[in-house]
């Protein structure tokens, strides 16, 4: 019996077309469907609903997609019934030709019954045979033309539906990505301190990617599959309730088999991914520490560990692949079982005349269409779960508490002098660990205020507070007499130039990096800033000059040169207040000298806060603050403090009595405190 296929082409269970995008170190690869790391959403339903709600801006298109899907599936589902009609016509023609012309069908049936062929009689009565007449080609062509129209319509609708859905999904993901990016700008820095960077990065890249993949791979298929199941069910019941019951037996059977296999394979997949992770960690470590492994002669041990983990991964993935690979043959078996049952039962019914041959043929097709979407839904379950789990992680990020909004009626200092005052400022990163307590200080316009003290004393914290990276727990900070919380963050920060410990440059040209923060700067201004900060000299020696691309490896630019670029950047933004967080740990001393000079140029006539690890750099500061455990223990000029023979004196002596060491002990991230 014929089986024109109208449902989705039998997609191998775990071979969706190659994933166009591979996020994360282990991408999903073609493992797709079944091979996902088993991350389960904690709250599947709400997150899934929320994900669906994100489609709402595309409401119109989603509605169109639904209508088109219903149309396309209905047409596709009606197809086999029409083909069944065609088979009936052919069958009738075949039977009719065997009978003598001129008698009625009833007569032919009676004759057959009289000859003892009761069932043939029934068959004749049931199939609309006209004795003596062959196949009615007129009727056949009508039916087939209808079928052509139907299938054509189904294909066109299916294409339109896919086209629209693709747009819907891509635009939804586009919005999700830009929402997340917007959110990053509104999150308080505290959030970034608490969240390990790699973890956060994974959320904004791998998880969004996973959501996008999931939406793309499941939406269309899920929709079509579910609609097909319903449509096919209706058709089957219409044709023959008895056969429908026979076919329906296969549903619980296939659901049972699939869930049983999936349950087992899920566990094995978990093991596979866990082992993959372990092996990955080992390889990463062995390769990153390669020279140590070599020089310490540990290659053999490392190799042994690798082999053990490699073998474990082999065993786990073999199990997972084998068990999950059984789904396809099992479903094929159930499908064939169904086929045989329907062929047998249907054949018997046709023989007794209670069903037409065409109906049986249509039925076989329907039963095939029935098991297939079920298999697909089953195979998508894992993918869906993992996708929703990722969506949930993205939503958590989107829901994170934002920083206080800028005041509705922002104030702005009328005069820009750069006078900074701390009034009884208290601040803590962790509620139970006071860091800065009742701190007051004034930086007069044009003054250089140096902050020194041991690691963890709160030096960087102090400047973070001026930038309003964190909100105070008590007291207030004013810039030229205006409380910084009364200003818009943008206005506050645009008055401040900052050179940080880590030299952050983005992937772009040197010119773009210097102009970062001053997008309107002219070429002349950029060059002037570069010259004042000794950037010009080395940039000119580069083959591409200011157009040299800074890449992640940035092998063409040394650490010291990078630092110079960040200084040029601050210089160009013409701030009234400067914050310099010294960063010369891996800079050789001759470059460091340049950095120092550049920073002096930058400091001229500006209020500046200088965080110094090395005291040599701050001897001429107007005010030196010695911090210990969040408090200012001493303040004054270099000479005053030396005469006082206090904390500063002791610090100074350890540095200059002993070897001048490069003290690069960076302050740990605030979260670690």
């Amino acid at each position, binding site marked *: 019996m014929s089986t024109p296929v109208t449902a989705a082409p039998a997609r191998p269970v775990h071979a969706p077309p190659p994933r*166009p995008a591979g996020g994360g170190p282990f991408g999903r690869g073609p493992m797709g469907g079944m091979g996902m790391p088993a991350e389960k959403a904690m709250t599947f339903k709400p997150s899934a609903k929320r994900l669906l709600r994100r489609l709402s801006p595309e409401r119109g298109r989603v509605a169109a997609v639904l209508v088109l899907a219903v149309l396309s599936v209905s047409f596709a589902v009606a197809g086999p019934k029409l083909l069944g009609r065609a088979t009936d016509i052919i069958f009738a023609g075949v039977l009719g030709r065997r009978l003598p012309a001129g008698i009625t069908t009833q007569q032919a049936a009676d004759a057959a019954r009289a000859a003892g062929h009761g069932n043939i009689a029934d068959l004749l009565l049931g199939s609309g045979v006209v004795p003596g007449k062959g196949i009615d080609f007129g009727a056949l062509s009508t039916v087939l033309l209808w079928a052509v129209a139907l299938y054509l319509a189904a294909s066109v609708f299916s294409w339109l539906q896919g086209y629209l859905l693709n747009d819907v999904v891509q635009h939804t993901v586009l919005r999700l990505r830009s929402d997340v990016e917007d959110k990053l700008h509104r999150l308080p820095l505290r959030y*970034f301190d608490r969240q390990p960077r790699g973890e956060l990065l994974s959320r904004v890249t791998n998880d969004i990617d996973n959501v996008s993949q999931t939406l793309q791979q499941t939406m269309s298929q899920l929709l079509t599959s579910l609609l097909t199941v319903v449509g096919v069910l209706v058709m089957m019941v219409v044709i023959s309730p008895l056969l429908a019951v026979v076919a329906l037996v296969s549903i619980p059977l296939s659901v049972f088999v699939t869930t049983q296999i999936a349950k087992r394979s899920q566990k094995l997949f978990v093991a596979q991914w866990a082992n993959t992770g372990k092996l990955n960690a080992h390889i990463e470590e062995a390769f990153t520490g390669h020279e140590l492994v070599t020089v310490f002669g540990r290659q053999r041990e490392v190799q042994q560990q690798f082999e053990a983990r490699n073998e474990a991964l082999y065993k786990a993935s073999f199990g997972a692949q084998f068990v999950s690979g059984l789904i396809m043959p099992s479903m094929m078996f159930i499908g064939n079982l169904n086929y045989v049952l329907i062929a047998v039962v249907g*054949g018997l019914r046709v023989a007794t005349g209670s069903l037409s041959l065409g109906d049986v043929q249509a039925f076989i097709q329907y039963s095939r269409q029935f098991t297939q979407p079920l298999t697909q839904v089953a195979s998508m379950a894992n993918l869906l779960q993992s996708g929703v789990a990722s969506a949930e992680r993205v939503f958590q990020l989107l829901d994170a508490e934002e920083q206080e909004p800028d005041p509705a009626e922002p104030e702005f200092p009328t005069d820009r002098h750069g006078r900074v005052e701390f009034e009884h400022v208290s601040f803590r990163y962790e509620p139970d660990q006071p860091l800065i307590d009742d701190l007051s200080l004034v930086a007069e316009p044009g003054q250089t205020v140096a902050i020194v003290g041991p690691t963890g004393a709160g030096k960087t914290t102090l400047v973070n507070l001026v930038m309003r990276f964190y909100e105070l727990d008590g007291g207030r900070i004013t810039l030229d007499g205006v409380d910084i919380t009364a200003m818009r*963050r943008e206005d506050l920060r645009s008055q401040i130039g900052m050179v940080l410990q880590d030299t952050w440059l983005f992937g772009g040209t040197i010119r773009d990096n210097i102009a970062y923060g001053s997008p309107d700067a002219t070429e002349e201004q950029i060059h002037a800033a570069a010259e004042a900060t000794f950037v010009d000299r080395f940039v000119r020696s580069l083959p591409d000059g200011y157009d040299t691309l800074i890449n992640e490896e940035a092998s063409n630019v040394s650490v010291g040169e990078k630092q110079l670029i960040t200084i040029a950047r601050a210089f160009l933004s013409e701030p009234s207040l400067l914050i310099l967080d010294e960063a010369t740990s891996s800079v050789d001393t*001759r470059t460091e000298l340049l950095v120092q000079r550049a920073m002096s140029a930058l400091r001229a006539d500006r209020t500046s806060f200088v965080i110094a690890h090395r005291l040599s750099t701050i001897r001429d500061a107007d005010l030196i603050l010695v911090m210990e455990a969040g408090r200012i223990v001493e303040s004054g000029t270099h000479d005053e403090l030396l005469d006082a023979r206090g904390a500063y004196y002791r610090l100074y002596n350890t540095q200059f009595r002993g070897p001048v060491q490069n003290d690069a002990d960076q302050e740990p991230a605030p979260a670690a405190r």
Partner: protein
Amino acid sequence: MLIGLLRTYLRPYKQPLLAVVALQLVATMASLYLPSLNAHIIDNGVITGDTGYILTTGAWMLLVTLVQIGCSASAVYFGARTAMAFGRDVRAGLFSRVGEFSAREMAHFGAPSLITRNTNDVQQVQMLVMMTCTMMVSAPIMCVGGIIMALRQDLGLSWLVVVSVPALVISVGSIVRRMVPQFRAMQTRLDGVNRVLREQLMGIRVMRAFVSEREETRRFGVANADLTATALRAGRLMVLIFPTVMLILNASSLAVLWFGAGRVDTGQMQIGSLTAFLMYLMQILMSVMMATFMAIMIPRAAVCAERIRDVLDTRSSVLPPIAAAADVPAVGEIEFTDVEMRYPGAATPVLREVSFRALPGQTTAVIGSTGAGKTTLVSLVPRLFDATGGAVLVDGVDVRDMEPEALWRRIGLVPQKAFLFTGTVASNLRYGDPDADDDALWEALDVAQARDFVEAMPGGLEAPITQGGSNLSGGQRQRLAIARALVRRPQIYLFDDSFSALDLATDARLRAALAPRTREATVVIVAQRVSTIADADQIIVLEDGLVAGKGTHDELLATCPTYQEIVESQLSLQEAA
């Protein structure tokens, strides 16, 4: 590349692979047999009303189905086993190849790339093997078998096969072909989006300080729109496939019915054969389609295979000697004679005409600006690289003639980046000497000024160290790295800028404690600062890869202009204070 890799690594699995082919052959034949049986049911059972025939043939069909599932399941078993074993073997091959690599090859590929190649790339190829074993093998069998069976049912309709198969191949193939470059472009665009996000997270403070949120949003917007545009293009091609396939399959079935009806009517064909033919045609087309779909996987796997082969085909530039020189007593004397080191492809060597001797009991310091070749010089001693000219001798033997184990046993290296391995404090320290007892470990920790914080860690020596030592501060990592070298009790200590993360007091105490411990050994210290090395027995000043001066601090101050410059730059830093 792909074929070569497969041929090499699948060779041991010939038998299971043959089993897969045989099993798939039987399974496919069984499933091809079913429509024939169905045709018999119609022609001999239904039309003649022979219920007994229907039942016996039905039972026979069930049996055939059972054979089919048995064979398919076994094929999956052997296929999965072979594919996963293939993956395991390739990983092992890669891992041990990389293990032989010198620093030069490591730098050439880069550790992150090697990691991806060893895991993700292998996985791609492995999945291709798996898919081939479970599906792709059966596609051609199904196709050829289907054609034979279809022709056996009726030759007159065979032209339908000739028309519909190429139609399907051409239409799906041309869509797939256009999709591949889109997918590739999408990967690049996705990298672009991720790069911007990454940069934003890394530079969040700078970004806020420079009020560049709007610019960042714009930058991201561009990348995001680029990605979406490509994804839309790829998606629009992808959604064409399904309706096209559907249309071709359905059109073929209608054609079979129409033209078949004519042949049935004239008695050239039986009605059962008609429906059987239809089913065979569908099977042929499905197998063709599946093969086309799988074809999308091949370009990607081919790229992965190429990346794998690149690593496998790279031979280490540092190879153990064919005939090692006889073991000599370990003293620790190092001698460089006219050493030149040039990285492949580099126009100028990083080191040239470097000659010096470092003797046991002495401290030799190496100083120079960034990029002067200091780290390279140190790396030549344990043969992380091999010199491209001249020779490096340890205890009078060229390091290239020495048994690597014997060489490494003499050396305690503290690299610039203090790298620790996942495990415990103790397991990291025992990297130096697996047999060291706890007392020896504590002793080393004492010298490295690490006792206090190790004692404060929960579990002490057994305190866990996370990957890369990320649960420790830079200074703590550095001290453990120093202790690790001390545990080894080598004849040669190589400190590559190893005190940079220590605060001044700790640094002073550490170096005071280090002195007696290393009294007998040859110590080589790379440093940035004059004060660190002023009391060394010998200072080597490197400038652009050349030895610009050699001597004690006082000698160099008197004779070496480069050294004078360095000292001046550091003095003026102090002066500036």
